């Protein structure tokens, strides 16, 4: 599958943004993190900014972006429509929570309800994003039980690493949050390794034989219907050399998991401001690593239409 940068950035940015929003909503709303105007403003701006930038980026993928509003109508059948509805609906409790927690400096009561609803909306939106990919049967690497949990784990992972950055920068770092961010980063690493292991051993039942209805023997493409690459090959026939795939997997692991985990351990040991610096660096490297991971998620996915072209 062609890794369109607008979609790669969209899923990575909104994942981190919704992860952070969910943590702020739950921990802020229930009073575990005391309301403080600058901390709250920066935190909510970061979360909603990532979400907003991601959603805007996703419209760059559209052929007719001016009609994007129509995508809110088919939530009864379409995961993409559900994603649109959930993402916009989440702004309502998130906005109320922001007003109550940041501007009015309250927690508990209606602020807690708004915070929990914003967190629920964030989780629901990430689920819908994951299901867009997990529901596509022609792409075996996506249509697996690994896809939906991956989106949730990576949202929680990047969100918690960002949450730790906020706490550290404002000098209210928490060892508990550091440990959670570290454990989620290790969980994300493990999940990605398990996913790659599963995909590498995948035995896809759909073959050139079933695609053409020609039973038995071998089916070899000897002539394409066209001389140049068409939409199908540009969009669904994207290929990545195995050697680059292996190298990019290593880069993604180092940037998204290994270095952030090491930096979080350093942050655990060092005093402020070194802990804050290590935390910021961990978040930046992880975001870059997740962009590589998401690029690979597309580039390594093989669509059944490629069978018709002997790929």
């Amino acid at each position: 599958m062609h890794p369109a940068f607008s979609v790669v950035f969209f899923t990575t940015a909104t994942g981190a943004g919704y992860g952070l929003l969910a943590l702020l909503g739950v921990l802020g709303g229930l009073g575990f993190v005391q309301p403080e105007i600058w901390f709250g403003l920066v935190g909510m701006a970061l979360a909603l900014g990532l979400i907003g930038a991601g959603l805007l980026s996703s419209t760059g993928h559209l052929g007719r972006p001016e009609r994007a509003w129509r995508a809110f109508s088919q939530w009864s059948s379409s995961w993409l429509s559900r994603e649109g509805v959930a993402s916009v609906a989440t702004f309502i409790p998130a906005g109320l929570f922001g007003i109550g927690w940041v501007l009015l400096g309250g927690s508990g009561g209606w602020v807690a309800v708004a915070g929990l609803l914003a967190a629920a909306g964030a989780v629901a939106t990430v689920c819908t994003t994951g299901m867009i990919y997990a529901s596509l049967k022609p792409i075996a690497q996506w249509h697996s039980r690994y896809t939906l949990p991956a989106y949730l784990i990576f949202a929680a992972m990047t969100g918690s690493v960002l949450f730790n950055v906020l706490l550290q920068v404002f000098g209210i770092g928490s060892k508990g949050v550091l440990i959670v961010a570290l454990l989620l980063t290790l969980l994300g690493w493990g999940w990605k390794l398990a996913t790659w292991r599963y995909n590498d051993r995948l035995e896809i039942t759909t073959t050139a034989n079933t695609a053409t209805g020609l039973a038995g023997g071998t089916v070899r493409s000897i002539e394409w219907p066209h001389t140049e690459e068409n939409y199908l090959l540009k969009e669904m026939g994207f290929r990545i050399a195995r050697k680059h795939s292996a190298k990019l997997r290593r880069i993604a692991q180092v940037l998204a998991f290994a270095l952030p985990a090491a930096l979080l351990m350093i942050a655990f040991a060092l005093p402020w401001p070194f802990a804050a610096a290590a935390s910021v660096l961990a978040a930046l490297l992880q975001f870059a690593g997740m962009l590589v991971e998401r690029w690979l998620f597309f580039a390594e996915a093989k669509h059944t239409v490629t069978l018709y072209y002997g790929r």
Partner: protein
Amino acid sequence: MTCLPAQTEKKLGLVIDLDTCVGCQACVTACKEWNTGGHMAPLTDIDPYGGNADGVWFNRVHAYEHTTERGGRTVNFPRSCLHCETPACVTVCPTGASYKRASDGIVLVDEDKCIGCKLCSWACPYGARELDTDVGVMKKCTLCVDRIYNDNLAEEDRVPACVAACPTSARHFGDLGDPASAVSQLVTARGGVDLMPELGYKPTNKYLPPRAHTERAAKVDAPALEPIRAEGGFLGWIDRMLSN
């Protein structure tokens, strides 16, 4: 709505005979010719005379070499929308632009609602949908919905353009929901198959596999040519000159 009809009154579709298709591309050009002025018009071409010709086509003919223990053969393979009974291209559509008609089962795109998100083309395992990058919307085979019900055409012409154009009658059009229809009986007689049945899209279009190799083929091991007797005169002179 992009929810699918529980059932359709008819299941209009195509039956494609891989035994008789000669890969002449007549159906491809007839499809392009009709549809670039039809329901989904235009079928935009990008750089048609340059080195990177690209464009929207509803029907593409591939060629394969099918090799079994009985030997090999070339199979020409037309590929177009199969108007599935459970088309995921319709249910994934976020805008309601894609729909399956309850009356005849034809899968269509309302170009005025399409936002060009490409998700339907990802959801189709058969590559039936192609984005018109010039207009920014998705396009696909309409089963020539503007021909088959067209009162302005003679009755025998009310078939999809690809069917009308096929010189070897490898393409048949009809109601596959009616077991008594000519196309249904053809599918039964020839053992028509679904493409990628394991994915569960329940395609309406059926493909008739090439007929089995026959044991009664003509003998072709004729005796080798005999040496020609030397001739005199002009022809003899040519023979001698050529023999040198």
